[in-house]
């Protein structure tokens, strides 16, 4: 714990600049949840083993439960709450709904954030690449096959340009 006057923490969360008064050496997860009331990122293990707390820092996935808040000063943080754009779901969010890739759903925000980072790196990952990227995430309900399927669907919907006419244009258009 730092002595003297606490230093405020400046960061950008989901596109908004935030100043957190008095950094007390907390985790990024605690700041997001308790200070900013962004509770989509979950506590699951506290040791970076389950992935439920995953957020993007400058576009890279990190385990916010073991990331000191001070280490993201001046950086850009994206949480599950920041993936929608103008009320439109991210293709991954659509795909998870379509594939019924959830049961209790507690792990899902972390899964989707990690997958968003994966799809930025690899436009069309195969199942093995998906499993490798997601290995650090636990779904205790074990919906793993559906999560893989959802990520594949989302990848397919983002790489394929929307065809004209009445053809199915991907996940945005449910028929």
């Amino acid at each position, binding site marked *: 714990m730092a002595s003297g006057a606490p230093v405020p923490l400046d960061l950008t969360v989901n596109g908004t600049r935030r100043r957190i008064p008095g950094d007390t050496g907390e985790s990024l997860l605690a700041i997001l949840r308790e200070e900013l009331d962004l509770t989509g990122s*979950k*506590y699951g293990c506290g040791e970076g083993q389950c992935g439920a707390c995953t957020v993007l820092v400058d576009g890279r996935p990190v385990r916010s439960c073991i990331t000191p808040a001070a280490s993201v000063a001046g950086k850009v943080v994206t949480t599950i709450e920041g993936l929608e754009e103008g009320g439109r779901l991210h293709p991954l969010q659509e795909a998870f709904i379509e594939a*019924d890739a959830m*049961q209790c759903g507690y792990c899902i925000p972390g899964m989707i954030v990690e997958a968003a980072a994966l799809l930025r790196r690899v436009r069309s990952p195969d199942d093995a690449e998906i499993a490798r990227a997601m290995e650090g995430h636990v779904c205790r309900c074990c919906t793993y096959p559906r999560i893989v399927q959802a990520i594949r669907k989302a990848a397919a919907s983002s790489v394929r340009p929307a065809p004209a006419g009445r053809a199915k244009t991907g996940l945005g258009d449910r028929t």
Partner: protein
Amino acid sequence: MSPRPPFEPALEPERYELHEGLPYRFELGRRGFLHLLGGVVVLVVAHDAASQESGRGGRGPSAESELAAWLNIAEDGTVSVFTGKVEVGQNARTSLSQAVADELKAPLDSIRLVMGDTDLTPHDAGTFGSRSTPYMAPQLRKAAAVARELLKELAAKEWGVDATSLAVADGQVSHAISGRSAGFGQLTKGQKLVRTLSGEIPLTPAERWSVAGRSVPKQNARDIVTGRHRYTSDLSPAPFAPSEMLYGRVLRPPALGATLASLEPVAAQDALQGVVLVSDGDFVGVAAKRSSEAARALAALRPKWNLTPQPEARELLDRLRQPPEAPREGRQSPPHVVGSVAEARPKAAHRLEATYSVAYIAHVPLEPRAAVAEWKDGRLTVWTGTQRPFGVKSELCEALRLAEDRVRVIVPDTGSGYGGKHSGECAIEAARLARTAGRPVKVVWTREEEFRWAYFRPAGVIDVKSGTDADGRLVAWEMHNYNSGSSAIRTLYEAPHQHIEFHPGRSPLRQGSYRGLAATANHFARESHMDEIAAALKLDPLEFRLRNLKDARQRAVLEAAAERFGWAKAKSAPGHGHGIAGGFEKGSYVATCAEVKVEPAGAVRVVRLVAAFECGAVVNPDQLKNQVEGSLIMGLGGALFEAVEFDRGEILNPQLSRYRVPRFSDSPPLEVVLLDRKDLPSEGAGETPIVGVAPAVAGAIHAATGARLRALPLVPRGLPSPRA
């Protein structure tokens, strides 16, 4: 439809379904809110059929004069349905909504399920034992059916026509001849119409279901994928701003059985600045504005503990065979005896005996135990993730010495349970802290607390002795389960002489319910033993099972799984094996085929699983498939590597980095075959598919290596010396 009590029978749970707690009996309180509701209100009263089964053991409610469910149709057409069941990922919110929409003939999106709120919903013993679908869905259907007929009566009166000439569809009552139609809400005209029903109400048979019986997405899926859904651990009670709530932590002893001797003055006084400290008997807890402050305050406390000697791990199997020190409440069922094993078995052509065991395993619900407690005007409200809202309310009343009408428990849709969230300790902790703090307090257990201080699936030892005749037909079957439980202990295989018995044990660790509970242990022992007999007689494992099986539903799933798997052509070879197992529990049937590869170094990989599952009429095929898939992969954890390690009252692997759970790379290609029996009532499905995994995998390992593994987990560190 086969006969079944129309209402959920008073609980006949396995001993561990409700772990140790206090006996209770709820009276139905005055439900003030009923007076506030307008529109159509239908109350379903549980009655005779259930009360005949009640009055045993002082457990659970007497169903008599209890409300089972209720339903309200508001003027705007919104249908509110009240049930004491909770949503923990098993998808009851969606499937029960489908049942109501189907029977009421209302659009699915007009149904709003209010679940697990002790002020609003009827008493319910808990969400476990795969009972929501077989028991709650028909009750809600009855309420819906009565409401539908009541709406028709209203329309008939209004339009001066005969009710039988009216049609109901999509939330509208219409009269074809006059061309009139009106929405449900319109018909209520703001009047309050209350109808109470009991007894038999004809329900729509599965062949004529429209909304039920098909796949619809999970109801709050959008809130889940956006992170908007608030689990208990995400809540702060309105009107309090999140900043007004405190975060609580509780002081834990160093080992099981330790009690607090004294609490010394704290090491660093400033760590307690602005922190609420509660020291009340054995309970010591803190509450602070931030969870990190609470953790710091807790670490600054200097407790002294009285330790009591606890058993060593190596004593486990002996202790499980010893009867409990104090007979716990709960019944020990008498042995199941048919014929005389003692007389018949010595004369059998082939005799075999073996002992099987299962380890303690942890539920590891990804959302740990969590509770938010708020006191207002002498009344306590606790939001908490539990499978037993009314049981937790009872625990709160007892612990805090409160009258029933002073406590409300609300269960937000919860981050899973698997039988692990029956108890109310976290709720009590939050409530105790909040009472002193005078502000709402949230307690979320750490993962380590969850591993150390929750309860486990019981460990067990199972002895099996069998006798088989020269034609490969069972003559005698004797099975004794020590400690792990009696679920699915009976065999579906035909054996003229049987002795099957469950013996409570002296568990060194706290134990309780789990997905399928002892059904996994009992199936592992039984199906493994069937495999051993088949191997000894040089019979195909499937052929041997079918030869001893008359039950048509069990045969059907075995045959369906074998066909999809290609069992007839699946030839095992060194390092590459196939296994099969059948199972029956909670009214549903499963058969599982496993294909396993064993590396020369001993690593075991399950490369394919096929399961056939039958649970009567299917309500939501895709969500059912989801449950079956999840059960299979979760079952792989307990089959292959999950085990709680302990010694002398201490859990040695209380972190996810040390307790291995299935991950993406453990998940093999899966195929699920659903047998939809529209002629049979729907049964629960969240549990049964787990039971066949371990024996099928054990059989496949044997086929691949010749090694017969009789302890779960089978290969926590790989096979020691595979005989490839």
